[in-house]
């Protein structure tokens, strides 16, 4: 299971960093000009916001092309990829966000250790995921990722993420019962 295409990830994240650095240098170079500094700051924010949006659009487009011949009952967009479940055939497939060039199939009969993790730390969480073990490797399907701080365990976003993770686990178990 190849989650990351290093060159693809480097191109996106490296490109983002280089662009931000260039804008920063431009802003510092024109520090005396308020308009230029402001535009530079705006540009940095825009790059930071636009990069994940563009990456997700790219993922959606590529996944749709790759999965058009994979019959599935459920399509799941998670934080790190798009999953397709076909429990009737006891299989699933995934297009990873950092490797959107392959539709990687998963034989659900080979999967073990299926569980939902709510990432609880004290009274909140910053990450929720479903995990399973395939070929000795733990695969995490992130349904919620908070970049700063935590959300309370009763927050609707946390509960919805737990529901998604629970549904992924149930799909996997349903696929395993077919065999």
């Amino acid at each position: 299971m190849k989650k990351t295409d290093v060159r693809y990830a480097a191109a996106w994240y490296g490109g983002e960093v280089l662009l931000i650095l260039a804008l920063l240098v431009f802003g510092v170079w024109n520090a005396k000009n308020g308009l230029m500094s402001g535009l530079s700051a705006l540009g940095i924010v825009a790059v930071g916001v636009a990069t994940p949006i563009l990456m997700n659009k790219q993922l959606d487009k590529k996944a749709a092309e790759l999965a058009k011949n994979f019959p599935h009952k459920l399509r799941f967009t998670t934080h790190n990829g798009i999953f397709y479940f076909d429990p009737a055939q006891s299989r699933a497939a995934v297009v990873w966000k950092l490797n959107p060039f392959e539709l990687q199939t998963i034989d659900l009969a080979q999967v073990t250790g299926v569980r939902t993790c709510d990432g609880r730390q004290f009274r909140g969480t910053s990450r929720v995921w479903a995990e399973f073990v395939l070929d000795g490797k733990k695969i995490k399907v992130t349904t919620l990722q908070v970049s700063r701080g935590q959300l309370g365990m009763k927050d609707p976003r946390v509960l919805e993420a737990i529901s998604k993770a629970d549904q992924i686990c149930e799909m996997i178990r349903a696929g395993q019962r077919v065999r």
Partner: protein
Amino acid sequence: MLELLDYLLGGLLQKELVKPPHCKACHARTTLTGKPRLFLLPLWQDQAEDLSAEFYLRGCRPISGLEQIPTGQQACRVWAAECPRCGERWMVAQNFLLVRGEEVPEGRLICPYRELSPLLARME
């Protein structure tokens, strides 16, 4: 801290699930009448849909209890509501996602009684 805030403000921030809506005609608070009916919806997780009476009439399937809700599928409670001031009757459909015993409110529809009343007659 979160629990203290919830204790102090919880009453003010009462969830929409149990709060009767305002009458669309005179804006008074309506009262919910009768027992709510439970239905399964053709919506999953936080999927949103343009909610209309036609959508509910077309897609709702009656169920008898929360235990019949599959993981990740939205359900709704449907009530009749009456305005104590002007007498207008309304139907309230409150969608929710059941997550390990917790109900997460999703969409809500308030419409004239006659548009959704056929739902109340639907048997399982």
